[in-house]
C-alpha cells in the first residue's frame, strides 16, 4: 500500500506542493529535449537520404566542438573560427561522400553501418591528434552567447533560467524548424525526399545522389556543430560529449527512424520524461535514473510499436 502511494500519489502531491520546482524541471527537460531532437534530426536526414545508420553522428558533435575550440586556441578569432569550422564540416561531408559512400554504393546496409564505425574511430583519432585529448572550455563568451541566469519569482518560488539554455532552446528550435521547412517546401527538400523514397527513380529524373549525400552529411555536420556548441557551453568540451549523442538512439526508436516530426517529438518526450522521472521517482530506486531511463522508455515503445510512434510501417513486397 505504501509503495503504491509512493509511486502513484506522492510524486503528484510533491508537484502540487512545489510548482516552481516542477516548472524548473520541465524547463530543464525541454532544453535537453530540443538538443536531443537536433541530434536525432541529423540521424534522420542521413538515414532517409542514404539509408545509412550513421553511428558517427555522436562523434561528429565532439569533433565539431573540438575543431571550433581548437581553431580559437590557435589564435583565430571566434567568429571566423566558427565560419571555418562550418567549412571544415563541409569538407568532411565531401570527403565522406567521396571516400566512403561512393565506393560502397550498392553494398549491403551493414557494410555502410560498419563504415560509420570506422569513421567514428577515425574522427576520434584525428581529433585527438590535432587537438589533444584533454577537456576544454567552450568559447561561449567569445561567440557572444549570453551567460548568467534569469531568476523568475513565480508560483511562490524561484525558477532559474540559464541564459545559455534559453539561447540553446531558441537556436535549436530555429534549426529544427528551418530543416523541416527546407525538407518540405524547397526544391532541394523535394529532391531529398525523392532520394529517400527511391534511388533509381530519383536518378532517372536527373537527381544526383552524390550531391544529395553531400548536402545531408553537411546538414548533419552543421547540426552537430550547433549541438556541440550548446552542450559544450552547458558543461565542457570533451569526448564524453559523445554519450549525449547516444541519447539520440532512444529518441529515434521513439520517433521512428524516418520521421522528422518523430525526431522532434521523440526528443522532447525523452528530455522531459527523464528529468521528471529522475526528480520524482528516482529517489525511490536510489537515483541516477537519467543514465538509463531513456532506453527503458524506448524499449517499452519498441514492444508496442516496433516502428516507433511516427515511423512508417514498411511492408516488404515479396
Amino acid at each position, binding site marked *: 500500500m505504501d509503495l503504491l502511494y509512493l509511486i502513484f500519489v506522492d510524486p503528484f502531491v510533491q508537484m502540487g506542493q512545489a510548482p516552481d520546482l516542477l516548472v524548473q524541471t520541465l524547463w530543464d527537460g525541454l532544453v535537453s529535449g530540443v538538443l536531443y531532437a537536433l541530434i536525432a534530426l541529423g540521424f534522420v536526414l542521413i538515414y532517409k537520404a542514404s539509408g545509412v545508420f550513421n553511428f558517427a553522428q555522436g562523434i561528429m558533435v565532439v569533433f565539431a566542438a573540438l575543431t571550433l575550440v581548437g581553431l580559437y586556441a590557435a589564435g583565430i578569432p571566434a567568429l571566423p573560427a566558427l565560419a571555418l569550422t562550418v567549412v571544415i564540416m563541409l569538407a568532411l561531408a565531401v570527403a565522406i561522400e567521396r571516400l566512403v559512400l561512393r565506393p560502397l554504393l550498392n553494398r549491403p546496409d551493414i557494410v555502410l553501418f560498419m563504415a560509420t564505425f570506422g569513421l567514428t574511430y577515425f574522427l576520434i583519432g584525428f581529433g585527438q591528434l590535432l587537438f589533444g585529448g584533454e577537456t576544454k572550455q567552450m568559447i561561449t563568451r567569445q561567440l557572444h552567447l549570453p551567460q548568467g541566469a534569469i531568476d523568475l519569482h513565480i508560483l511562490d518560488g524561484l525558477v532559474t533560467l540559464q541564459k545559455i539554455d534559453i539561447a540553446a532552446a531558441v537556436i535549436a528550435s530555429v534549426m529544427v524548424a528551418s530543416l523541416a521547412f527546407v525538407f518540405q*517546401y*524547397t526544391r532541394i527538400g*523535394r529532391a531529398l525526399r525523392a532520394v529517400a*523514397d527511391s534511388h533509381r*527513380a530519383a536518378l*532517372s*529524373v536527373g537527381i544526383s545522389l552524390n550531391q544529395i549525400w553531400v548536402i545531408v552529411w553537411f546538414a548533419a555536420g552543421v547540426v552537430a556543430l550547433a549541438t556541440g556548441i550548446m552542450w559544450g557551453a552547458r558543461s565542457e568540451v570533451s569526448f564524453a560529449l559523445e554519450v549525449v549523442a547516444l541519447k539520440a538512439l532512444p529518441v529515434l526508436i521513439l520517433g521512428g527512424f524516418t520521421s522528422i516530426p518523430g525526431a522532434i517529438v521523440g526528443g522532447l518526450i525523452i528530455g522531459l520524461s527523464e528529468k521528471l522521472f529522475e526528480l520524482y521517482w528516482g529517489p525511490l530506486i536510489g537515483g541516477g535514473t537519467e543514465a538509463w531511463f531513456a532506453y527503458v522508455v524506448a524499449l517499452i515503445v519498441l514492444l508496442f510499436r516496433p516502428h516507433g510512434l511516427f515511423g512508417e510501417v514498411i511492408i516488404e513486397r515479396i
Partner: protein
Amino acid sequence: MTNAAAGETLLAVEEICLRFGGVQALSEVSFDIKRGEIRAIIGPNGAGKTSMLNVINGFYRPNRGVIRFRGQSFTRMRPGFAARNGIARTFQNVALFRGMTTLDNLMTGRTLKMKRGFFWQLLRYGPAMDEEIEHRRAVEEIIDFLEIEAIRRVPVGRLPYGLQKRVELGRALATEPELLLLDEPMTGMNLEEKEDMCRFILEVNAQFGMTIALIEHDMGVVMDLSNRVVVLDYGRKIADDAPAVVKQDPAVIAAYLGVAG
C-alpha cells in the same frame, strides 16, 4: 501505322553484352531507334528486355558493346547524363516517390529544368517563385493531358496500381524527354486503363514527336502501337522487323511457344 519511322537514328546499341555472374542477360544485341518512332522490345520472361533499358539509361554497365546516342559513342551511359540529355523512363514495377503527392512527383521531373539557386528557393520569393510557378504550369498541363486532376493532392502510395503507372508516365513526361523508355506500362491494368494508356502513348508520339521504346507483353498492343519490333530471347536478338512480319516469324513463334509449352 501512319506515323512511319523515316527519321535518322537517335540511338543505337551495338553488340551489347551483359553478364550477371553465370547469367548472360544480353549477348551481342544490336538494334537502333529512329527519331520519332515507337520501337517495341518484346520477348518471353527473363529475355533481357529490362536489362536492355537499364543499359540504355545507364543503370547497368555493359561488359561489352557500344551505345551510340545522337552520333556520339559510349561504352556505358550514366543515369545523370541520360537524364540531362533527354532520356526518361518508367519502371516495370513502378518506382514512384510514395510519400509525395502526384503533383510533387511530377514536379521532381522538372528538377533539371530548374535553374534558380538554393537561397532563392529558401526565400520563396522573386525569380525563384516565378520559376516555381512556370514549372507548375507545365506540370498542370501534363496532369490535364493524363486526366489525373482528381488525384493531384493524393500521396501516390495510396493510389491503385493503374493510376500509379499513369503518374509515373507523367513524371517521365515532365522531364520533356526526347526518348521515352517505357517498361511494361500496361501490366496490371484493366482493359479501359490499357486503352487510355495506349491513347496517351500514341498522342505523345504524334503530337510532340517523342521517340518511344516500349517493352510490352500484350501482342495486340504491340501491333497497334509500334513501328518496328525487336524480339529478344535468352539475351539474344532473334528478330527485328515490322510488327506484322515479326508475328509470322517462326523463331519468334517458337520462343513464345517454348515458354507456353
